[in-house]
Every structure is written in C-alpha cells, then in structure tokens.
C-alpha cells in the first residue's frame, strides 16, 4: 500500500499520463463513437478529480515534486555534482491553480461534445486529439524541466492544429490550421533554441537549477537573447497583439469545444510566460523593462482586440478578438507585479495586481468558455456563424440565451459576476501604479459590453425569423456543459474572497517566490533570489467582503441591493396606469400616422448596429484592417519583428540600467 503522501506525489504525473495513454488507445475504437467519446469524458472527469485533490495537497503540503524514475526530490541530484539530472514535475500553487483551470474547462468541453457524436464522423480521432491536448496542457503547467516544457508545447501544438482542421469539409479549416501550425512550429523551434542556450551555458535543463544559476551569474548576453525569445514565443502563443493574427482564424474555425480548449491552451502559454519571467529571471533582470514589455503587449491586446471585435459579424471571430482582449487584462495585472518586483510596491499594490491578473485567468477560462459554447450552440442550431443571418433565437433557445447572458455580463465586468471581482482588483492596483493604464482598462471593459450587446441583440432578440421556426434548444449534453461553467461563474462571483484566499493568493505568492521554487529542488536558494511576499489582507470583517488594494467588494450585499432595486422597480411599474390593456390599440407603436412596417424589415442587423460609431472611426479602422492581411508570411513577419524589438529594448534599456 502506498501512503497518502506518496499518492499525493503521484497525482500530477497520473493526471498527465492517464489522458496521454488513453489518447493512444482511442483510435482503435473505430466506428464506436459513443464508447470512445464516453471514455474520453470519463477520463476528463477523473483528471478533474485528481487535479482538485492535487490543489488541496499543494495547499496543504506546499510544493510537490515528482521525479521520474526516482523517489523523492533530493535524490535527483547525484552526490557530489549538485546538479539535478532527472526530469521532474514541480507543482507549486501556481501550477496547481492552472491545472485546475485546464481540467475544469476540459471536463466542460468533453461533456459538451457528447452532442457531436451524431453529427460527425471520426469521433475516435477527435477524442484522441482532445486527450492529447489535455495531457499537453497539464504537462506544460506541471513540468519543472525546460526541455520537457518544449515537448509538451509541441504535443499541445500538434494536437490543437489537428483539431482546428477537424471539419475538413469546410474550406476554412485547412487554411486556419496551416497558419496556426506555421507560426506555432516556428515558435516551438525558437523555444528549443532558447533551451539550447541554457543548456550550453549551464549544462542543466531543470528550471529551478537554471534559475539558481542565472541568479548567480546575472544577465549574460545569451540569457538576454533567451529571455527575448521566450517572451516572444509565449506572448505569441497567448495571442498577444501584434502577434495575434492566427487567433481569430483558429478559434473561429475549430468546433466550439475545441475553441475553449484552444483558449485554455493560450492561458497555459501565458502561465509559461509568467514562469519564465518570474521564476527563471525574477530580479536578475531589469524588472521595470520586462514588466513594461508585458504591460505594453497587454495594453495593445486589450485595446486592439476589443476594437477589432466590434465590427465583426462572425460570432466566433468576434468572441476570439475578445479572448485576445481579455488576455491583455491578465498581462496588465501580472506585468504590474513584474514591474514592481524587488521594490516596496510589490507588498502593497504589486501583489494585488498579480492576484487580479491570476484571478482573471480562471474567471476568463470559465466565462470565455461559456460564451464560445453558446456560440457553438448557435452554430449547431442554425448552421451559420454569421450574426447578420440570425435573429429572434431567444424564443427558441431559452437555456442558451440565459447562459449567454451570464457569460456576457461576466466578461463585461458587471457585478455580481466573477469578471467584476477580478477586474476590480486589477483596476484599483493598476491605478496606483499608473492611472492611465487603469483608465484604458475601464474603457476596454465598456467597449466589451458594447459588442456583447450587439451579439445579444442580433442573435437572440428581434423578430421571429421564418427560417428558424423549426430550431429547437440544443441537446442535453450541450446544456449540461454550459450549465457547469455557468454554475462556476455564479459561484465565483458570489464568494470571490474564498477563491482569492484559497486559490489565487497562494498562486500569486508562489509565482513571486523564486527562492521557494529553487530551494524545493536544490535544497537551498541562492542569495540573489526573490523571496516570498505577504499577500496582504483579503477578507474584510463582514462575511463575503473581498479587500482590494484601496477598497472592497461584497457580492452578497451587491445581490441584496439588486433584489431591493428590482422590487422598487416592480413597485413603480405597478403604480402605472391600470387602463393599459394588452392586445389592444394601445400597445401598437405610433409612427406619425404611418403604417408599421413588417417586423423583419425593421430588425437591425449585426453589421448595422454600430455603423455610426464605426464610420466616424474609419480613420482608425482602415490601417488596422489593412494590417490583418490574412497572408501567412505577414503573420510570421510580425512575430519575428516583435521578438527582435523585445531583444533591442531589453538590451538597450537594461544596459543603461547597469544590470549587466
């Protein structure tokens, strides 16, 4: 029998190995779609259970290390060498937090795609690639070895590209998959180049060991190049502007459950970006420069992402641009943490900004996942993604409508949903860092709401269109998939203080705590490593109050206020004229004596809603549209250009700062 402690150590490798093994079994279950996808769903549920227990174990015991082929962490260092030689999984609070996000989304996605079995062929390959994606994402966040990170990066890339092209009969799938694959393969090769740079310098591949050596040797020229490459590749894979061009293509074309897996995959790349900057380099590098690089990529993503979303009329492309825009919030929050690292500010607003950014990761995975699933439900029911062709679907699909509303309110940061809590944390702490950044973040939030009003109006409201008379609500499994995510959104929205206290704050502290990460493997941390900071007070005295850096937020009181306001509205409504009768002349619109035109003629289409706004901003939009050429060479040039720029900025600014 193994002890509880041993079992807790085994959780992380099991969560990766089970889906990896099943992925290679499933292709043999040909023509047995129900069984193959049933197994995949069961695996996703098991992995979720394992990861939940892992989160608890990490919370209880601290960083958990599993060394492949050997028992215990310290034995990975052969006596007399001082160098850890084996591949290991190192799961700290940040990794387990990301693991929880990934596993939850994967569970929702696999339940949701049970409905696909009847509509598609090749389900066993679909489920197999989905399992590969799950294994790749979990491996990416759990691993403590940088070459291993590259391997999981590639597993994830290959599986996601294959799934983007799942609907091979449609013209777009090959194109989107090719563009995504070219840029991610190139990114992967650059990542491998950076791995080579570390290995040639230090002769180790373990992340903790490399971090320890970097803090001894300081920034060499080679380390600077490796850092620029890593920031470039991970920001590109996370969808940071201006390297985002592949994102809307891949997200729009993939089936909805795969889109949410892709979205979560981009969050794991964001994790890798944070792991690189915070754990590998931390205060060895000029933190202000690196922090501002992340903040600027975040700002561009937020603003350009949301402004590109407004004119879209393909529902999934629109949401894909929002995915880019929301990633910007996380980069902004955590970037502020990076920029304040090693100063006194990290203890006050820096760590709070990071908590906001990290809290936004899990919130975003949930509501963005939900929104993509509702878009998938619209596509399933109507057969189109074009918002101009939709209308009046709220009558036919009430559950989808409610789920969409929950997701849209959460993404726009409307209290009491979960998006509000994380955005509030970001706004307040970023305001203390630089007020202009917080103002831009709020503006982006308003524009987000505007474009979701557009989706809601054009798809769900409006007259009953004759071609959708026969549309029915989507099947049960799709509703369950959406329901799971909606439930999590509401729960996180109501008790944000618990989520921040037990999940987010440990993750933020673990990310900052470079010394802890290193000493868990090496036994002792180098003197130059950044140590943990205290997260500050989280809970207010009144139950349910979440303390932000300069204010507080209590969702329960917020709900009570909303309910009271609703009753007042009802009261005012009931005091209205009792002579108002339904079904009589009174309800008909009065158009100066003109006859009312038919309902479908007066329905405002998606492309027409913001025409005034868009045409007055055409000077802004024209160059932006011209940049989105759709040519794969241009996508790659932007990526190379940004990486080169990061390198130039890093070298020039850090030299002036006297770091080298």
């Amino acid at each position, binding site marked *: 029998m193994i002890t509880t402690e041993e079992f807790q150590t085994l959780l992380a490798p099991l969560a990766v190995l089970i889906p990896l093994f099943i992925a290679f079994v499933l292709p043999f279950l040909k023509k047995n779609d129900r069984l193959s996808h049933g197994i995949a769903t069961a695996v996703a549920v098991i992995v979720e259970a394992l990861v939940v227990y892992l989160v608890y174990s990490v919370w209880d015991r601290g960083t958990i290390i599993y060394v492949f082929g050997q028992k215990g962490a310290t034995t990975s260092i052969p006596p007399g060498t001082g160098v850890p030689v084996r591949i290991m999984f190192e799961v700290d609070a940040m990794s387990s937090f990301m693991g929880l996000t990934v596993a939850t989304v994967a569970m929702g996605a696999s339940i949701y795609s049970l409905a696909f079995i009847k509509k598609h062929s090749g389900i066993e390959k679909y489920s197999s690639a989905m399992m590969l994606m799950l294994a790749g994402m979990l491996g990416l966040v759990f691993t403590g070895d940088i*070459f291993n990170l590259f*391997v999981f990066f*590639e597993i994830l*890339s*290959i599986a996601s*590209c*294959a799934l983007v*092209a799942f609907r*091979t009969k449609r*013209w*777009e*799938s*090959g*194109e*989107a*998959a*090719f*563009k995504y*694959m*070219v840029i991610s*393969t*190139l990114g*992967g*090769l650059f990542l*491998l*180049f950076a*791995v*080579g740079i570390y*290995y*040639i310098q230090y*002769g180790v*591949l373990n992340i903790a060991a490399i971090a320890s050596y970097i803090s001894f040797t300081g920034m060499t020229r080679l380390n600077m190049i490796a850092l620029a490459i890593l920031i470039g590749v991970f920001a590109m894979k996370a969808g940071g502007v201006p390297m985002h061009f592949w994102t*809307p*293509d891949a997200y*729009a*074309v993939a089936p909805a459950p795969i889109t949410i897996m892709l979205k979560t995959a981009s969050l794991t790349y964001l994790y890798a970006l944070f792991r690189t900057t915070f754990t590998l380099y931390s205060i060895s590098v000029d933190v202000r420069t690196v922090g501002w690089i992340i903040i600027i990529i975040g700002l561009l993503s937020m603003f350009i992402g949301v402004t*590109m979303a407004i004119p*879209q009329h393909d529902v999934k492309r629109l949401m894909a641009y929002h995915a880019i825009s929301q990633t910007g919030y996380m980069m902004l929050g955590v970037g502020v943490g990076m920029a304040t690292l090693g100063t006194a500010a990290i203890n006050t607003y820096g760590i709070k900004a990071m908590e906001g950014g990290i809290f936004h990761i899990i919130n975003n995975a949930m509501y963005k996942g939900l929104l993509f699933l509702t878009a998938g439900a619209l596509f399933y029911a109507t057969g189109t993604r074009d918002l101009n062709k939709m209308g009046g679907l709220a009558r036919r699909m009430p559950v989808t409508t409610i789920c969409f509303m929950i997701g849209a309110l959460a993404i726009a940061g409307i209290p009491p949903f979960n998006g509000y809590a994380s955005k509030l944390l970001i706004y307040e702490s970023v305001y203390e860092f630089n007020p202009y950044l917080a103002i831009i973040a709020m503006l982006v939030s308003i524009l987000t709401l505007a474009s979701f009003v557009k989706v809601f109006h054009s798809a769900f409201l409006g007259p009953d269109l004759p071609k959708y008379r026969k549309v029915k609500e989507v099947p049960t499994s799709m509703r369950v998939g959406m329901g799971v995510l909606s439930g999590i959104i509401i729960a996180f929205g109501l008790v944000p203080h618990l989520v921040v206290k037990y999940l987010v704050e440990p993750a933020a502290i673990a990310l900052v705590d470079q010394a802890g990460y290193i000493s868990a493997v090496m036994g002792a941390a180098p003197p130059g490593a950044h140590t943990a900071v205290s997260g500050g007070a989280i809970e207010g005295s009144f139950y349910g109050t979440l303390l932000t850096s300069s204010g507080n937020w209590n969702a329960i009181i917020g709900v009570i206020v909303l309910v009271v306001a609703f009753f007042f509205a009802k009261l005012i409504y009931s005091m209205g004229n009792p002579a108002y009768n339904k079904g009589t002349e009174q309800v008909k619109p009065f158009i100066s004596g003109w006859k009312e035109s038919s309902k479908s003629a007066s329905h405002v289409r998606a492309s027409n809603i913001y025409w005034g706004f868009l045409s007055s901003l055409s000077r802004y939009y024209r160059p932006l*549209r011209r940049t*989105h*050429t*759709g*040519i*794969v*060479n241009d996508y*790659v*040039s932007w990526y*190379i250009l940004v990486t080169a720029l990061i390198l130039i900025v890093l070298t020039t600014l850090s030299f002036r700062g006297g770091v080298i």
Partner: protein
Amino acid sequence: MIENLPFLMVALFIAIGLYAVLFKTNLIKIVMGISIIESAVNLFLIAGGYIKGGIAPIYTSAPEGESMVLPTPQALTLTAIVIGLATTALLLSFVVLIYRHYGTVDSRKIRGLRE
C-alpha cells in the same frame, strides 16, 4: 575560429529558413523553410554539446581518462527530430487540404480568413 564554424552555420541556416518563411509565397517552400530552421536548431544543440577530442558517450568499454561529448544534447536532438517529423507531416497534409479547396498553394491567394 574553426570551432565557431558550426555556430556560424546555424546562423546561416536560420537566416535561409527565415528568408523562405518570410518571402516565399509557395506554401511548400514555407514548410521547407521551417524544416531548414529545424535542422539549424538541431545543429545548434549538437554543436553545443561538442567537446574537442571527446569520444562517443558510451560508458562501457570507454578508455580511461578520455573525455566524452555530452550525451544529453544528442538525446534532445533525437526528440526534436521526431517532433519535427510530426509537424512537417501535419503541415504538408494541411497544404493538401488547402490545395483541394483553393486549387493553388500561393500564400497571397489563400487569405479567405482575414480581419
């Protein structure tokens, strides 16, 4: 100087590969460019593990006092080659898919998805 030659070759190969990816409009040539970069990165890893006068890293029957080249980069390169095979195959199959729908492999014409 001569021991820097492999690294100069790496730089040259990466430059050639990037040129192909950035400026060639034929999708097959883009895939070829990626393959060239991949070889360059593999060469970089191998060159990094080289020790002058080192022998093959096999412990049994190794002569006493000889230094060995690093075995890890070779293992890494093998893994990278296998991954490269998978990515190249997948990329080429996407090119086939694109050609079926567009009837061309010119990247300037394959831009149905944009903005």
